[in-house]
């Protein structure tokens, strides 16, 4: 049986998520053995044309050129996996969605006329059909490995959508919010990172985006009691997943209060 071919694509992003593939140091040889890496500019200049069995797509759609390129990628991909907060919700650059893009362009670039950009930064799934999404800024490399392993044997990958709290309890981390009064987005954030930040006594900052049924208002009311000012709450919800519908809706409401 021929090895499935893999292509890795980049849109507006920092490359951190696709580098997770190379960061799989112990497993990299087995990965390379199991799949045929046909297009992955971060790793090799060798390139083979499509179609590809699997495409990993990193980054968000921010330019008119992106709009056509993502359609081309979709057309030559069997399975399309969006990886990371940029590709799944629009990323931190989706902060532009709340502001005037023309003003940004005028302030940042000496010759704004050369800049062709969209007013918004949006997720891959807003433009084409996405078969699977890996959340996170960055993604968890073991979730990526899980996807590769599952694909190779034809099973459904295990990708949790419940809250980060489950992972804290699983690893025996005591709750930073209950025990230390630290504001934490864990109860409304999707698991998958392994609950890294609370293990270092930090509150979760929501880089995996909303969990399957986030109750943002209830957590916000509790943050009020912890003494977090509403503008700080709004900022906490407006980071890597600012454009995720539940975070966007709630933060917009709180900002208008």
């Amino acid at each position: 049986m021929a090895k499935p071919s893999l292509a890795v694509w980049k849109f507006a992003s920092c490359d951190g998520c696709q580098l997770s593939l190379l960061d799989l140091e112990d497993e990299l040889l087995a990965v390379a053995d199991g799949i045929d890496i046909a297009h992955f500019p971060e790793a090799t200049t060798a390139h083979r044309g499509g179609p590809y069995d699997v495409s990993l797509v990193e980054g968000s759609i921010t330019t008119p050129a992106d709009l056509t390129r993502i359609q081309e990628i979709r057309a030559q991909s069997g399975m399309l996996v969006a990886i990371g907060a940029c590709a799944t919700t629009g990323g931190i650059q989706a902060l532009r969605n709340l502001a005037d893009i023309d003003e940004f362009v005028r302030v940042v670039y000496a010759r704004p006329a050369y800049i062709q950009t969209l007013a918004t930064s949006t997720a891959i799934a807003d433009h084409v059909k996405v078969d699977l999404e890996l959340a996170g800024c960055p993604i968890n490399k073991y979730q990526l490995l899980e996807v590769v392993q599952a694909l190779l044997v034809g099973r459904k990958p295990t990708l949790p959508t419940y809250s980060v709290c489950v992972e804290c309890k699983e690893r025996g981390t005591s709750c930073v919010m209950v025990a230390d009064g630290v504001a934490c987005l864990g109860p409304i954030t999707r698991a998958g990172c392994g609950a890294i930040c609370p293990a270092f006594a930090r509150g979760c900052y929501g880089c995996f985006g909303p969990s399957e049924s986030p109750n943002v208002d209830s957590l916000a009311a509790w943050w009020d009691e912890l003494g977090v000012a509403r503008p700080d709450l709004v900022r906490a919800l407006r980071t890597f997943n600012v454009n995720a519908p539940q975070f966007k809706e709630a933060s917009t409401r709180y900002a208008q209060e």
Partner: protein
Amino acid sequence: MKRAILAPTDLDNLIAVLSERGFEVLGPTLDSGVVTLSSIDSTADLPEGIRDEMSPGRYYIKATSDGELFGYAVGPTSLKPTLFPSRRQVWTTENTDQGIIFRSSVPDLRPVAVIGARPCDAAAMAVQDEALLGGPYIDTDYARRRRDLFLVVVNCTRPASTCFCASMGTGPAVSEGFDIALTELKLDTRHFFVAESGSERGQEVLDQLGLDPADPDDEELVRVALEVAADSMERTLDPVDAYSVLRAQPEHPYWETIVERCLTCANCTMVCPTCFCVTTEPVTSLGDESAGEERRWDSCFSLDYSFMGGSPVRETVESRYRQWLTHKLSTWFDQFGTSGCVGCGRCITWCPVGIDLTEEVRHLREQIDA
């Protein structure tokens, strides 16, 4: 059983004796600002003088200089992670010339002795025994860990404000399921424990320590201390009333009010010492083509938990909260003959937004009566 007096130095001997008998000894320790359960070598590892104060959604540690070794109530860690680990491998496969071979995963385990479990923890263990060992299908991993467990319970003389074991009939004194029970007494001039055995091997270990018998005055001090502890509990839950009130009106509009607060984060079920729901996840590897299955704690608050026929059966927040509370306090009786709640109060303390099940049951009762 005859009661004996155990000095703090005898407690060190107890740890040593259990260690010599091959047990890994676990006890309460202070870690990252909470009292938890981990390996101990001596009483020096115990959280001396530490108090815990709890309220819905909040947990505080306070240091005192009174030298009590068990002067707190309960931290987030029950016996559950020890007897029923949050994640474990169930089976693995290996590809051979003869085909695929399946192997049960049987970890190499050292028997565990726990010093300082609470009466509610022992009661919760009995509840889990019924669920995991009581029917025709036995959880063999739990059975093994349970069989090897040596349990030293320390009765509660300082319950937290979130505790309600007295009303559930599970504390503050332990009644069964222990090898040794201790009650700590710290008077102006004396600091000691009154010990009793709850099993033959418990008695054996006590005999090995060569303790003096307790006199009637000391036994009276224990009785009074535990009576004061029982009376000091602010929260109550009537398990018999909860049984009927929760099943009375599953469609009552009250359930919708929970939507405003419940995060569906699953913390309550994770810290609950009796919650035993699990799911299994397939594991495959890239290189050697081996495969296996892992079991991990699941929760009735996760959508996947009720995923059947293409969608979750309990999609709404209220349906998930109702499932948890109704099973815990009502249908558990039908299934296992007891309440699923032991009154430890962990779900109240460790709910990130402080939802208090004793309050919820009271509100539901009031609304139904109104």
